[in-house]
């Protein structure tokens, strides 16, 4: 009980500290902006730890963070193998194929006003559908290994990427197009010099949305069948064995992978679309 009381006190202290920082004179600085969420996150972790110990919450309901950390440290080879199987082989290859195919398709569609008119609503419609549901079918077609996961990812990222790219390639002002016209620029000249650069913010928006979708697709597809490794496989079997520390360890890996993947794409975006108002400062 004392641990729980201590947790409450600590929570109060963390909040008080953050309030002081947030309303303090230097709250706008980078350091404080970074410190506050970190303090908040750390407080949650410590409170979690204390409450789990204080109330003696059983492992099968909620393992303490320290236990999860120990599990991560102790199972690095397994986690790495799962990561390679699910992220590198499944998610990443599917992401590259799916986004690449969607991009080429968008370029093709862009040439025809009629196609664009027809495909955009259909694409928007499909992008809102629960596409992970295709996983059992694709597992049946492509087998249990990573190829089927990559296929699910391809299907999942294709439409958001297509819709964004098609929309982006339209994102030029009449004046910019007229300028190209007065130079009598050819289709591909105005594509590479005007429409493609102008579309970059949209393309990256699609690429960013797709990072998360890729990871979701690869993990969920493994729930429908996989070889005896992979993040989704590990999660579903560990849940069955009530080894929740392992489940959490995989979730930590998934969270890290997702954030880093997204961060990497956002970083590239920052370098490519430095000129866009949203990226300047």
């Amino acid at each position: 009980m004392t641990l729980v009381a201590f947790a409450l006190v600590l929570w109060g202290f963390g909040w008080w500290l953050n309030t002081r920082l947030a309303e303090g004179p230097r709250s706008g600085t980078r350091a404080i902006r970074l410190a506050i969420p970190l303090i908040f996150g750390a407080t949650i972790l410590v409170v979690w730890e204390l409450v789990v110990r204080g109330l003696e919450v059983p492992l099968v309901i909620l393992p303490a963070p320290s236990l999860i950390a120990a599990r991560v440290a102790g199972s690095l080879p397994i986690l790495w193998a799962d990561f390679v199987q699910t992220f590198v082989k499944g998610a990443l290859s599917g992401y590259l194929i799916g986004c690449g195919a969607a991009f080429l398709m968008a370029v093709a569609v862009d040439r025809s006003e009629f196609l664009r008119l027809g495909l955009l609503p259909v694409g928007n419609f499909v992008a809102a559908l629960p596409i992970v549901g295709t996983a059992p079918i694709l597992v049946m077609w492509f087998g249990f290994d990573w190829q089927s996961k990559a296929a699910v990812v391809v299907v999942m990222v294709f439409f958001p990427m297509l819709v964004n790219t098609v929309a982006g390639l339209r994102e030029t002002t009449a004046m910019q197009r007229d300028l190209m016209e007065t130079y009598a620029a050819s289709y591909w000249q105005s594509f590479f010099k005007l429409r493609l650069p102008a579309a970059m913010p949209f393309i990256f928006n699609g690429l960013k949305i797709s990072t998360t979708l890729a990871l979701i697709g690869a993990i969920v597809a493994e729930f429908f069948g996989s070889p005896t490794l992979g993040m989704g496989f590990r999660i579903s079997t560990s849940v069955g064995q009530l080894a929740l520390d392992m489940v959490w360890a995989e979730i930590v890996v998934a969270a890290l992978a997702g954030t880093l993947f997204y961060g990497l794409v956002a970083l590239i975006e920052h370098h490519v679309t430095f000129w866009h108002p949203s990226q300047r400062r």
Partner: protein
Amino acid sequence: MNGTGQQPELSSVVSAKGLDLTFQTNDGPVHALKDVNLEINKGDFVSFIGPSGCGKTTFLRCIAALETPTGGSLTVNGMTPDEARRKRAYGYVFQAAGLYPWRTIAKNIKLPLEIMGYSRQEQDERVRNVLELVDLAGFGGKFPWQLSGGMQQRASIARALAFDADILLMDEPFGALDEIVRDHLNEQLLALWARTGKTIGFVTHSIPEAVYLSTRIVVMSPRPGRITDVIESPLPKERPLDIRDSAEFIEVAHRVREGLRAGHADE
């Protein structure tokens, strides 16, 4: 489109005969240009002036083949506007600078040169020259958003000058600038025109600007857009800024104002 009675000594660059343009909009047709007749000769500096919506921009766009007339005939250098466009006859300066934000100023100016297939070396040389011309030497590496509005507008003029178009079409290029910068650019534009002998079509809302710059001033009036008066300027080709205080200048400005009033009274 033959038999365009050209005078032998003055070669006609733009020739409009009975030009008509009607936009089909959702709430009925808009008659933007009606029976427009105009000859622009080589080396002319023609200003277009008139109330908002009288079709100045539309006429300029017709010349540059950005708009297709619905009636009448229009030739540029004896060709259709579209053929002239393919021969890269136009430098067009839009009302806003319209620089590409992802390119530096120098790269923006290179844009038409890349499209028209100039060599690397030639590109660099031309960029250097036109940057000098518009007083932007040293700003080539900057991005458009790092420049003031006036500097951006000058860069867009430099972009139109970088290649050898014989016709320069400018749609209110100095509309957004302050008086001082505007005077300065007006002077430079005149110098450039004198040096290159380009044919210039220039849209403005400012009477003094039109009078100061032009050899001819075309007064237009709206609904439907048409030409109501064409005033030949008696001013000499050499024009210092203080010519604007001369009696001749004030006389021409007065005629332009009268022409504008008359157009208004018609409504």
